[in-house]
């Protein structure tokens, strides 16, 4: 039987990513040499899985850098679609955190649909909306089914959606309709184009 591999096998340039690029994503900063050893072992044994939350955080940081290197692995820009493979969903639970990490790495502009590939079927789980934010306001008004909700800018937030379709209007984006999904609406209000 062929050798088992893992998610990171698909990103061959990962061993050359500067260590500071990984550290920037981590709230608890590990010792540099320990992190270097961790990453080297992760690439040596790509099929292994993390036991602890802290290890999962490091793996998510590594995944962000992997997607910065090769976003085309899951991002189809001309279709405004992100398709998360089933093994990626299982490897990086929960799905909300995984989609946040993907958003931070890929930075898709405008409205991008997120799908998960499960049992050979693509299932939509949410939408990433990233408007162009001009003049650096502290807050942004978002209209959900004509009801205004004010969000603080500068970050990424998840807004669960009910099963019924909703029309969303944000800043300069064209209004769009979404409903339900395991994740919901990801609002990327970090600013910039």
């Amino acid at each position, binding site marked *: *039987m062929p*050798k*088992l591999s893992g998610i990171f096998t698909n990103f061959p340039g990962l061993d050359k990513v500067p260590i500071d690029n990984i550290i920037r994503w981590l709230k608890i900063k590990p010792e540099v040499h320990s992190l270097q050893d961790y990453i080297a*072992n992760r690439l*040596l*044994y790509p099929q292994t*899985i*993390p036991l602890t*939350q802290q290890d999962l955080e490091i793996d998510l940081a590594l995944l962000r850098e992997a997607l910065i290197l090769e976003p085309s692995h899951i991002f189809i820009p001309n279709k405004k679609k992100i398709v998360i493979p089933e093994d990626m969903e*299982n490897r990086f639970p929960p799905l909300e955190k995984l989609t946040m990490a993907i958003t931070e790495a890929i930075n898709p502009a405008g409205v991008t649909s997120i799908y998960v590939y499960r049992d050979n079927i693509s299932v939509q789980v949410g939408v990433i909306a990233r408007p162009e934010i001009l003049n650096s306001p502290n807050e942004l008004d978002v209209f959900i089914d004509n009801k205004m909700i004010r969000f603080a800018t500068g970050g990424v937030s998840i807004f669960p959606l009910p099963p019924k379709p909703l029309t969303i209007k944000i800043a300069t984006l064209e209004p769009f309709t979404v409903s339900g999904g395991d994740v919901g609406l990801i609002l990327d209000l970090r600013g910039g184009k």
Partner: protein
Amino acid sequence: MLNFFSRLEETNPKRIDQTKRKMALYANLRSRIIPSKALHVKRTIVGKGAIYVTKGQEVASHDVIGKTYISPGFSSISVTSRLGINPIDCTKYLQKPIGSRIYKGELLAVKKTIFGKKLITAPTDGTLEQCDPRSGRLLLRFPQKELPIVSGVFGIVDDVNENTHEVTIKTIATEVFGIAGSGNERSGVLKIIAGQSGFTQASQINTDLRQKIIVTGGLIYGEALRKAATMRISGIISGGINSADHLAKVSGANREFKDVGFSVVVTEGFGPIPIGDDIFKLLQEYENRFVFIHGNTNQLILPCSTSDCIVALRKISIPIKHLPALSPEIDSSLINISAYARIIWPPFMGTIGKIIAIDERPTLLDSGIMTYLVTLETSKQKIKVPFANLELI
């Protein structure tokens, strides 16, 4: 992209409903030790020398197969301070030109003064190598010594190459494969300087270990690695190595085939990790015996220790390969009760044990991943490990 969960029926944590596991679990199978294999080893006569054996000749491990010449080094004499002259005038007072042979007690340099003559005599036999005009120091190279080259193995000479000064000997040996390494093929007497999980510091590296292949335990520090180069150690076997130290010794597009003066084989992974029981036990059996190390292919060769293997070799013919042997392919295999496995992720990374149970229902790990656990029995304890964090051996 290979989906390593593809062999499980239920993988989504939300959809695994605690029903009993329906499908088999797989793990990678890595050969770490291949016993009693017929292979070739090369003995190289470095520099000027002679080869005494011929193709087809049977050799014992202590048989001399050739000779080479080595220079033990230099002696340095301060001509300026002994004669009271300027450094730039160093060669002016020598009695023989640079490059000449000189013998112990022979007159080396003379300066006449109004008080008489100042003399320097040769403290030892040697050759006048150089007189430095900046320091005024005379370098005296010690005479070359003849060094016999022994076979190191019981075997049959399969090839003698007078151009490359190499003797290829067919022998039977145990091959050990690590997971990382660097450096060309080298040989030497095996010496264990630290315990299975010990740490080796620079202070433990000394001239007694020159030309030896040393076993340094769970980790060798970077400073010790650098000292190993200056102490002319042939090779290092360690359970773990800091990845930064490893990267400093490999380079190139494929991070392969660099040599910094000694060879390293890492048996387990990066960071401090004890050498696995299987390999350490073998190394203990081979301590103080002549072995071979090939860092670039992560390989150790532990030759047979008796002449019995020559009897078997007479009936074996193997082609001479000009490229170094690669590590065996890694395949995946079914995880079965009673199989032996090695833990390849912390905690207990490097630990080897026997599989005594495979869970029927998945467990939710602290990381949020739902997976099946396997129980491994070691000599000291029983450990439950996610099946993905095991390699079969």
